[in-house]
């Protein structure tokens, strides 16, 4: 089971609710953990992730608005991709008062179990407009898994 701690701010973060629903959906459907464990403690936030694949690669995207490439750490250990970083609060000088504070700050860490073996030495991460994209080319054996069957 994937555990998402209940938080007061949940109402204002529809994606967290959506994530829980997705987790439940996957769990119901596959009857097991889908392999993505949201991880959040005090002062942490949970950036939204998107995992997709093409014939040649696995793509992991994370929404990290307000962060720079230097604020993010990407590591790959034993088929688990981990994204880590911190978003510091932008302190506005001369701020008198806040009317709304909805954006998330603080430390985050998310780990993704990759669906297939990848070429660990050819992983590429790019950061653009607040979106981190990690492209992991599938290893030859993962690619050749698809066997075309002739029907005739």
């Amino acid at each position, binding site marked *: 089971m994937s555990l998402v701690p209940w938080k007061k701010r949940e109402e204002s973060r529809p994606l967290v609710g959506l994530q829980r629903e997705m987790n439940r959906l996957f769990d119901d459907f596959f009857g097991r953990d889908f392999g993505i464990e949201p991880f959040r403690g005090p002062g942490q936030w949970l950036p939204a992730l998107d995992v*997709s694949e093409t014939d040649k690669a696995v793509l992991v995207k994370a929404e990290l*608005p307000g962060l720079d490439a230097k604020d993010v750490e990407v590591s790959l250990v034993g088929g688990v991709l981990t994204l880590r970083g911190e978003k510091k609060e932008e302190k506005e000088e001369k701020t*008198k008062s806040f009317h709304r504070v909805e*954006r998330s700050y603080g430390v985050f860490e998310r780990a993704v179990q990759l669906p297939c073996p990848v070429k660990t030495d050819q992983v590429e991460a790019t950061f653009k407009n607040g979106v981190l994209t990690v492209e992991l080319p599938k290893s030859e054996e993962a690619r050749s898994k698809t066997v075309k069957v002739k029907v005739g």
Partner: protein
Amino acid sequence: MTDTRNIMKRPGGETPAPREERYRIPQVDICETEDSLILLADMPGVTEKGVDVSVDEDVLSITGHVSPPQEDSRPLYTEYEPLPFRRVFTLSQEIRRDGIEGKIANGVLRLTLPKAEEARVRKVPIKTQ
């Protein structure tokens, strides 16, 4: 403040609206300084070209377009959809419409909304005798 939360329809519920009518609501911080209001909106994936800010009388609209996913990719696990961002705010008369400035960096839109002269805090010097 208008917040229409039609981001996601529950599975098995109503049919989702056509793609172009659905959008995501960006999270915002609004803070006030002595001479202006500063609005920060999280819009990851939105470039300078994709952002649109407009003021129509009392209504400030923020729209951000994101590029669609790679065509040959299949989703495995999705926590967000590449829908446009959109949020609408009501402006008070205290905001000077012609002085609104915006810029976007790292997926965060920053709008500076200057206060009208009348709305600024004026310090009244107190004379001592």
